[in-house]
């Protein structure tokens, strides 16, 4: 029996620092979560194989360091990406501004590739400062808007799978 071919897709994780990009990847790839914050330097590359609608996909996940005053995201990290997860920390509304800057960078570097807007840390919903009407501009262009929690796993799988499906759809066109 002939082995099915695997489609490799690069996905960048973009967002301000400490929004939970590394935790989201870890939850998605290993199913684990750590309370300890561990800052990312440069880019950390991971992978996860999926079967989406009978298509084997290898998602190469580029967990790009969180942008802040110390580090600006290098455009070269984004090149060749088929899509990205644009992440916001629901408990910090200023991460919306960082997300907007990164969205602009992503458009300039990757073009209009699909992206999912992920509002993370839903487990801390009582402390949320972010309301849907505050990110309508980002949500209107996203293929998916999802409230997630790397801690509980809520919305994590769905975010990656939905983005991957959208990327596949775009690549077939």
């Amino acid at each position, binding site marked *: 029996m002939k082995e099915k071919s695997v489609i490799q897709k690069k996905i960048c994780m973009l967002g301000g*620092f*400490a929004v939970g990009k590394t935790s989201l990847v870890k939850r998605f790839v290993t199913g684990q979560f750590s309370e300890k*914050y561990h*800052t990312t*330097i*440069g880019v950390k*590359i991971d*992978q996860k194989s999926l079967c989406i609608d009978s298509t084997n996909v290898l998602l*190469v996940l580029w967990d790009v360091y969180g942008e802040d005053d*110390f580090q600006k995201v290098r455009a070269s990290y984004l090149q060749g990406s088929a899509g990205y997860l644009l992440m916001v920390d629901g408990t910090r509304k200023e991460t919306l501004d960082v997300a907007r800057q990164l969205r602009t960078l992503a458009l300039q570097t990757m073009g209009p590739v699909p992206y999912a807007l992920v509002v993370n840390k839903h487990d801390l919903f009582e402390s949320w400062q972010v309301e849907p009407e505050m990110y309508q501009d980002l949500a209107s262009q996203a293929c998916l808007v999802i409230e997630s929690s790397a801690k509980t796993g809520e919305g994590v799988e769905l975010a990656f799978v939905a983005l991957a499906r959208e990327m596949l759809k775009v690549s077939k066109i």
Partner: protein
Amino acid sequence: MSVEAPYSEILKLFDALIVQVDSVTQYRIIGVVPSWYPSDISPGQSSIEPLEFVQKSFFLQCFLPEAEEFWQTHNQGTLPSGLWSEPNLVGDENYLEATALVQDDQRYLIIRSYQSELITLQPVLQKAREDHLAHRHERDAHKHQLAESEQIRDDVTAVLDHLELAMVMIDENNVVTYASPTVRHVFGIDTQRFVGRLWPHVLPLTAEHIRQVQEQRALPEGRRTSVVLSLKKPQKSWLEIEIEVHDDPRDCRRTILFLKDRTEIEDLRRQLIGQAHFEKLIGKSPAMQDLYQKIQEIAPVDVPVLIEGETGTGKELVAQALHRLSTRKGMPFVALNCAGLTDSLLGSQLFGHKRGSFTGAVSDHEGFFEAAEGGILFLDEIGDMPLTIQTTLLRVLQEGEIIRLGESRPRKVDVRVFAATHQNLQDMVDTGSFRSDLLYRIRVARLYLPPLRERREDIPLLSEAFFGQARAVTSKHDVREISPDAMQTLLQYHWPGNVRELKSTFEYALIHCHGPHIQSSDLPQEIHGSPAVFVSPRSSTRDEREEILAALEQTRGKRVLAAKLLGMSRSTFYRRLSELGISPEECSQ
């Protein structure tokens, strides 16, 4: 590719994988392959295909096209890839960086491990970000607390403002730390500049006011009293302020001043006092209000006035009030009691005499009429005036002139006469002891002063006034108030001596009082012995008729005494006799 021994050792020190790019299809490895680089390159292997070289690294797969473009477009320079980590490739903690280099058409790809550098760099960055997060968390908490505090402050301020309670907080250095908005309303000054300044400099108080407040601040909280002060406002109006001095419950070094605008209350109090006082008369009962009204109506009309009322009701005070409100205010007010004087003495007192007109008349004497020229002559107890003098008085009133005893020359006088009596002059006319024509002449205007028992609601007000006067007279300032049981006793008594008796009762009580309150036991004995039957409200006409008959029987038909026993004025007593159909025969039985 092998290199000479010294260079080989130097390259080892860099711990880098160096690849010379000969062509797009062939890479040459310079030196040794570091142990951390996972590849199938065997020791001593000098060349490798690019795809084979990058097959295990997703990162290099992405970077290589970028590097190739760089090599083709540049003659010299470097293109760093940025740090990356591939757990599947080199483990979690190993960070690499690739650099595309071109120099004199020689192209290289250098891959270095930054593991050792990051051992020191990563914790710094980690710490910086953790601190940033902690700082932000702390800032958010403070912002939240501040917002809550501001909300509470706004709420409290709104409540204080709604209550129109002005409040100033002062620290231990006399510096204002807070001033409620109402302070501005009270003083009409901008409170924006209050905070941070010394309170005596910002509150528009006099040095004496400030001293009083400081004096209270120095006292323990429990011993402080309010400072009440009057401030002159620029618009010529007065501001009545009560300042309460409190310690801040959170920090006793700080002080809270509550500034209460009592202007309206004081104005209302004055109005109330005004209603309860008229000249020197005290009373707010309907009877007294009616009397005040009549005095104001009669006073300006230049006619004689007859003032009727039981003894001790304050007839002379009424006469003085009439004088002060009359057009003759500022002119003499001469009072003469007609009781107990002989014809000649009273005649001499009233009209004056000529030297030698009678034994003892050693010089010319001006009478009271002349002394009162232009003003008022008050004739008290006119019912006791002998008939002969009544005749002369009538002529004086009709003609406006007097003749001194022993003279024949009339003297013009301009005097307004007020007469007063506790007797029923009409009865006296009936019995021939008072001239009717004089009565009609002197009672052009009439005023009736009700006895105290007919205006019991005034007893507390009068009591407070007399209590204050008696306390001042006796210097018993430690007696602070009248006890409820004493007041009850006062209210039950029938007061035959009227207001005068009430006044002397307080002088007696103050002398006998040894505590802070006047007790019922401090009052004179007769106040306690008042027969209840005569002071209790009458339950029916039948009861009253029986009471009157009983009183007449007790006084053996003497109506004046019976009226007194019942606590009635004579006019009331006679009116009740008529209304109850009690005949003269029944009275004398």
